[in-house]
């Protein structure tokens, strides 16, 4: 084990020593003889990339478990692309009617669209089709989930602050695209559940004042169910949105490389440096390992845990509906908002503003609008326009953390509202009572949890002896933190006695 006294240069031999002996064979092997070197030489002679490639190899990535959540989203996306391509070979996005003759007996002889029939064939008669479909679906669920958690991480640590506002905006765009593409994906199969989902999408589109009727007619190719919607969603789902995601993802990553990753404050970690592992080989290997492990988890989920068993729902019939119609989890908050919205309809200038407009369009618009605007809003309110490369700990920013917790509470309650019928059935409760509870809770719980979070932040930072943002300028925090993580262990001599955190 090398000690810390060893001069730094001894730790890593200078790059590209010539004629190093091969440890295994003992033979001297010039690096020029190695295939990787020859390949690198070949490329460099033509593109002159050695310097750039070397910079990439030595890129430093700060290490923290929470920094890998965004990576997780990336790997889910790769799995989505791989499994999705396989599915396109067998799926037929056609609303043409056909009689099912596949191997699933309960539906034999039933008239259905080619879309639904080919989904059944994919599930029962294409080898490895069902496992691919289920991995695809699980990957979509996890894709959106990891984006949301990644977004929460970036929010609560303040990693969206200048200079990273642009990447925050791109990230929110990616979230929106991921949500919509997930929705479009499970709407393609034309089973009873997805058809019900499409009908609600149609109704929400229709509810937009002035342009809604036209928009719905153009999107669906006519009145619901519309002859064209599945073909159109298919092109959007497999081509348009993934292409935009690839472009935005590339920009997202390029900006991270350009701006370098943020890091948490700690010994030797300052605003003007970045401390972590080199990309090559350790970080790259860990990332690759994480990719394979993500794939393993998704394969396990896709193989063992049934998801979206379309054969149980039957083909879509416009007059039928199954009870406990639940969308995928990331649509749950919207579905919940539709459910707990009181039965109000507004008339303005002699025209109607239908009820679904408020939860379906206005709330969704506000949600994403506020997400886009947050970095700029916060900078305006705090007047903090400095560059920030050190992450906040959530407790250092009680107001932001409280707002974040309150917002999360709001959406969690909407999500629960979306499951009201299932909850009522499971626990033997009245669905009306449950919905009334959620109607109140969605207004009352966020301020409450926000207040609790605020108090917790204050208490925790008081215990740390770390002043909160309201007591000290932000750029002082890392310097103070460097001298001791906990004040009760090593009293900080340099700084003035830390002001006791306000107790009220």
């Amino acid at each position: 084990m090398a000690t810390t006294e060893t001069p730094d240069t001894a730790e890593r031999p200078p790059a590209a020593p010539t004629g190093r002996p091969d440890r295994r064979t003992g033979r001297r092997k010039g690096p020029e003889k190695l295939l990787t070197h020859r390949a690198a030489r070949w490329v460099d002679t033509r593109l002159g990339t050695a310097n750039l490639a070397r910079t990439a190899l030595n890129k430093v990535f700060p290490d923290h478990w929470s920094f890998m959540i965004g990576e997780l989203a990336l790997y889910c996306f790769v799995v989505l692309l791989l499994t999705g391509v396989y599915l396109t070979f067998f799926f037929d996005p056609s609303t043409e009617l056909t009689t099912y003759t596949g191997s699933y007996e309960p539906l034999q002889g039933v008239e259905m669209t080619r879309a639904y029939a080919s989904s059944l064939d994919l599930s029962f008669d294409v080898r490895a089709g069902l496992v691919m479909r289920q991995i695809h679906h699980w990957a979509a669920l996890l894709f959106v989930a990891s984006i949301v958690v990644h977004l929460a991480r970036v929010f609560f640590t303040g990693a969206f602050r200048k200079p990273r506002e642009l990447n925050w905006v791109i990230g929110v765009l990616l979230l929106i695209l991921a949500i919509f593409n997930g929705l479009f994906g499970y709407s393609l199969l034309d089973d009873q559940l997805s058809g019900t989902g499409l009908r609600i999408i149609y109704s929400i589109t229709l509810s937009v004042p002035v342009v809604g009727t036209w928009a719905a007619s153009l999107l669906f190719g006519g009145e619901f169910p519309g002859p064209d919607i599945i073909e159109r969603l298919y092109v959007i789902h497999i081509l348009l949105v993934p292409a935009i995601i690839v472009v935005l993802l590339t920009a997202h990553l390029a900006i991270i490389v350009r701006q370098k990753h943020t890091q948490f404050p700690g010994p030797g970690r300052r605003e003007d440096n970045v401390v972590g592992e080199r990309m090559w080989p350790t970080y790259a290997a860990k990332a690759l390992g994480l990719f394979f492990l993500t794939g393993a988890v998704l394969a396990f989920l896709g193989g063992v845990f049934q998801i979206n068993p379309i054969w149980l729902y039957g083909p879509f019939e416009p007059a039928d509906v199954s009870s406990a119609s639940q969308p995928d989890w990331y649509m749950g908050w919207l579905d919940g908002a539709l459910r707990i919205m009181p039965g109000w309809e507004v008339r303005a200038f002699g025209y109607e503003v239908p009820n679904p407009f408020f939860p379906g369009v206005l709330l969704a618009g506000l949600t994403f609008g506020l997400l886009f605007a947050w970095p700029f809003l916060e900078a305006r309110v705090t007047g903090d326009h400095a560059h920030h490369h050190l992450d906040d700990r959530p407790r250092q920013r009680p107001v932001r953390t409280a707002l974040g917790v309150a917002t999360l509470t709001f959406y969690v309650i909407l999500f629960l509202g979306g499951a009201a019928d299932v909850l009522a059935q499971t626990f033997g409760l009245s669905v009306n009572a449950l919905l009334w509870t959620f109607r109140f809770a969605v207004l009352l719980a966020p301020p409450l949890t926000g207040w609790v979070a605020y108090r917790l932040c204050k208490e925790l930072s008081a215990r740390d002896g770390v002043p909160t943002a309201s007591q000290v300028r932000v750029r002082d925090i890392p310097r103070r933190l460097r001298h001791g993580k906990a004040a009760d262990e090593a009293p900080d001599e340099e700084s003035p006695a830390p002001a006791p955190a306000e107790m009220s």
Partner: protein
Amino acid sequence: MTSDPRTDDSRVADENIDDRPALRSPASQHPPQTGEAVLTKRGERAERSAATAFFVSMLGALGLAVVYWEGGQPQLEGILLAVALGGIGTGIVLWAKHFMPSDEVEEDRHPLESTEEVMEAYATDFEAGESSLRSRRLLIATGGGACAALGLAVLFPIRSLGPRPGRDLKRTPFAEGNLRVVREDGSPIRPENLPDDGFVTAWPDGHTDAADAPTLLIRLREDQEFRPREGREDWTVDNVVAFSKLCTHAGCPVGLYQAEIGQLLCPCHQSTFDVLDSCRPIFGPAARSLPQLPLALDREGYLIATGDFSDPTGPGFWDRDR
């Protein structure tokens, strides 16, 4: 503490070539590890574990191929794929953890913004080009106009995507008048054939695929007193009432009838309608009553609808009652 002096020294040696991020100062809690030093028992164990993981992965992949060849089985495929991928992942992570350098490295973070001089030089160059462009005002105006016109023109094909949403939203096939109200298979219905205390989903004759016209035929019990809206007193036949099955909220079929209390529940968003009060919404997000269908009997005693529903069926839209 601005920067570690040793970091600077190593850079001075050959600034141009050795600009790799320097090793961290000894302040680090984790002493630098190159991986070469781990030829201990722990290291041997780690190597064995990683190799085992790779080997298990091989077995998983092999098993996957066999299962596929033998006809496939979704659960096994998923598990074996997970083993194959997980083995590689675990092996790589163990390899990285034990045999790759885990030393922390410090890299300078240079200011992102360019210097004033660079910005000004850029501005000068841009303005030089811009002024030469600006001198041709006529070309700017006409060129911009041409682009705007083209942009407008290429919007027009959007119109091809769907038909004009005119009256279609406000009428159903029942508007034809005196159509029989039939079952899904097209068979006509007599009031006495309807189940007591239940409902039948019915359609306009000849349009059993009309997505805007599914109708609930409900035969009320003798003890239930139906309260019709003004002007619709004669829309009921033999205690049979007919309402649109499409929820006025988001258009889901209102599929759950609680006969004993005469309430309809929409399973999508829990809107509840009181059938006896002409399907007035009493709970949930729906704001309007279900549209009613005027019923009568034809000469042969089958149910017919004398006209269209009392209101457009399904979800609301901005000019619904215009």
